[in-house]
């Protein structure tokens, strides 16, 4: 080798070494995150609002969480629970050396107190409470949950950040919560309502070893601070992204996609697929109490037109009859044949005749808080009218909708949406107490079988049965899959598109 070649090779090697650390994520910096508004509370146990979960997941942690494949993985627990052969006793070993933001050590006593609070104040916890015989500390690092009957979704429930079983110090279990003191990588420094929520790095944080894995794995604290800034106006959020004022901007209307492309200060982040819009039927009272009327509604609707009106470009939605898209283990076609995107007014009219429909108005409750709900409702109303329905489209604000839907005398259909939840048992509409009040012997048989089966493979098959009964009984109608649009500054690294965006593992390029 000539001296020149040798020198070039050595030089290239040195350059590569120098570039190595430069490519690594750097510590420091403040990230400004524009959110859709001010969270109603900072207690993720009492609220099921996504915004509450997005913010508090940085501060308060659960025993388990979800990895990048949406499988339950340990977070504050040392490993997945040991489940007794009869499926009734869960023994949870806790990680040791984990401290709360107030400096105290996390022990089994804190976990027991927190789980008991969860069963008392969280809606998902209360639903589970009836099946829990005891929650007790075995030793300072072990907790045992004894169930009345096997309940497979328990670990997923303990992992979810919404109505979340977060672990708080035993002496800080007040309701309402006085201050969010948790074990998370960031702690609350200041909250100025409608101005900002300031989180700062928690120096005593004990991360899981290894690499990040979805919400699980290592949680690296590159950023000094995370500031969540409420920006309720969607147009202002778009401009805030374009001007570079915000490093991450959540929940943007999909129409903004083209404006975000090719910009210096920001770039679009598409979460594909994000969730599903849904028409929930009132199965308890009124017109849609009749299964034939529910079938008529579904037969009348053309989902493709509804999705096109709501999301415009096909890049942002997909027709999908299955409850879960292909990327989830829960995806199955069972029961969906002929039960989706029918758009057949004659078939719907025949079903209405069978149901002896007398022209009573079909009351559809929707809100413009989510403009795509309203757009879908408008298209649906026309298809329903074509089938012979008299439609009463009631457009109210979201707070009114959530109040009215609790009264079965006030509505027949309400429109909502949900992200794809990692565990089907978390779908609120499957609960008999959720507005819609779907409660039939068939539902009970398939849902109970699904909830009590521990074997993951068998559960996948059993979910197919649940989907078949949903398709046959029509307690709600899935309209399709849709994607979520956010924006991030190119300098912000390590942010993974997620339904509840998180900023541990994120860093700023200097």
């Amino acid at each position, binding site marked *: 080798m000539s001296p020149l070649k040798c020198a070039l090779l050595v030089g290239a090697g040195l350059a590569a070494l120098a570039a190595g650390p430069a490519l690594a994520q750097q510590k420091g910096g403040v990230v400004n995150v524009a959110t859709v508004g001010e969270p109603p509370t900072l207690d993720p146990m009492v609220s099921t609002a996504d915004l509450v979960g997005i913010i508090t997941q940085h501060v308060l942690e659960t025993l388990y969480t979800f990895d990048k494949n949406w499988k339950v993985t340990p977070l504050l627990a040392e490993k997945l629970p040991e489940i007794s052969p009869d499926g009734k006793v869960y023994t949870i070993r806790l990680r040791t050396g984990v401290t709360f933001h107030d400096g105290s050590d996390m022990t089994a006593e804190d976990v027991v107190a927190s789980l008991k609070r969860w069963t008392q104040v969280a809606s998902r916890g209360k639903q589970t409470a009836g099946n829990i015989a005891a929650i007790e500390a075995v030793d300072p690092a072990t907790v045992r949950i004894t169930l009345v009957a096997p309940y497979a979704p328990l670990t997923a429930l303990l992992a979810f950040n919404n109505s979340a079983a977060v672990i708080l110090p035993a002496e800080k279990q007040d309701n309402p919560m006085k201050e969010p003191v948790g074990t998370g990588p960031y702690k609350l420094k200041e909250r100025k309502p409608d101005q900002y929520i300031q989180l700062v790095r928690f120096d005593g944080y004990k991360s899981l070893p290894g690499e990040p894995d979805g919400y699980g794995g290592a949680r690296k604290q590159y950023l000094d601070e995370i500031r969540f800034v409420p920006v309720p106006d969607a147009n*202002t959020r778009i401009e805030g992204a374009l001007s570079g*004022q915000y490093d991450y901007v959540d929940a943007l209307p999909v129409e903004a996609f083209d404006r975000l492309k090719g910009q210096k200060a920001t770039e679009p982040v598409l979460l594909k697929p994000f969730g599903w819009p849904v028409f929930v039927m009132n199965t308890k009272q009124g017109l849609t109490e009749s299964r034939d009327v529910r079938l008529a509604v579904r037969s009348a609707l053309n989902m493709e037109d509804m999705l096109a009106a709501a999301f415009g470009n096909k890049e942002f939605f997909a027709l999908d009859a299955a409850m879960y898209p292909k990327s989830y283990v829960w995806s199955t076609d069972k029961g969906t044949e002929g039960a989706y995107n029918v758009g057949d007014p004659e078939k719907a009219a025949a079903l209405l005749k069978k149901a002896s429909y007398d022209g009573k108005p079909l009351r559809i409750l929707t809100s413009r808080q989510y403009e795509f709900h309203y757009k879908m409702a408008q298209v649906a109303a026309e298809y329903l009218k074509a089938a012979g329905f008299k439609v009463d489209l009631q457009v109210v604000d979201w*707070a009114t909708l959530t*109040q009215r839907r609790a009264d079965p005398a006030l509505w027949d259909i309400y429109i909502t949406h949900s992200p794809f939840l990692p565990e089907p048992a978390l779908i609120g509409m499957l*609960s008999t107490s959720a507005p819609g009040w779907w409660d039939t012997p068939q539902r009970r048989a398939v849902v109970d079988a699904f909830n009590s089966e521990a074997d993951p493979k068998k559960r996948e098959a059993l979910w197919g049965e649940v989907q078949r009964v949903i398709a046959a009984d029509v307690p709600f109608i899935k309209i399709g899959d849709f994607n979520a649009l956010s924006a991030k500054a190119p300098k912000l690294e390590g942010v993974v598109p997620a339904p509840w965006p998180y900023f541990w593992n994120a860093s700023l390029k200097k």
Partner: protein
Amino acid sequence: MARYILQRFLGMLAVMFVVVTIVFVIVRVAPGDPAAVMLGPDATAQDVATLRARLGLDQPLVVQYVYFLGQLLQGDLGQSIFLDRPVTTALAERAEPTFFLTLFSILIASLIALPIGIYAAYRRGSLFDQAATTAAMLAASIPSFWLGLIFIQFFAVRFGLFPVSGYGGPDAGFLVRLQHLALPALALGVVSSALILRFTRASMLDVLGDDYVRTARSKGMGEFRVVMRHAFKNALIPILTVIGLTAALLVSGAVITETVFGLPGVGNLVVSAVLRRDYPVIQGALLVIAALYVLINFAIDMLYLVVDPRVRY
């Protein structure tokens, strides 16, 4: 005169009582439930009922009203359901951005409206007068939030001169906070200038034809001095009245502008309180805004008393 003041004062108290009652009834009769908002979309009816009971919302309306009045008489506007602080504290925290937004908007509006209004009246019927009158009509027709979005497009996104929204982070000093107020103040100022301009022009036209102006001119006084010292000074009272009322309007009327610009002011507080159904905050904020209106009207009444002796009798 004392009787007149007492009458106006008692009238003011009666108006406040009616406002308090109407606000109390409207927020509770309107559909929506703070408990349902707080608990989120998947909360059960039972959870909502439990929280309603804890917040005292399950009590009959009359009981809630008597309790509310009792608190009010002690100067207590109640506790916010969502903000975890007394309503008075929440309002005090929001006073700064709203105060400065109002102040700067009025300053901008006056700086635009007064010279143009005076000159338009002075050159009545000229091209300048017609252009000013048309511009004022246009400005009055533009919604301030729309103008705000246009300003954001140009001054914040395209030229990067000002922030798009918010009121600065935890480390923001007074100057940074003022920077955040620039665009909303400009938007509100331009829109508010229309009314002041038209009042200034009309008021100046009234006085420019008066005898004392002619006398001043006949004495050989310079035109600038005639217009500013003699005419404008006498035209000022109605102009000040309209500026005062515009300021009062801005405190409450900046609701949409504050929301568009994400400014944590009183207007924004009212909007988020309405969306969340935070009853005590809605009541408290509307009460303060109404009180402000009533007080400004009272002050104007008192001003008339000073200016116009006929009111005294």
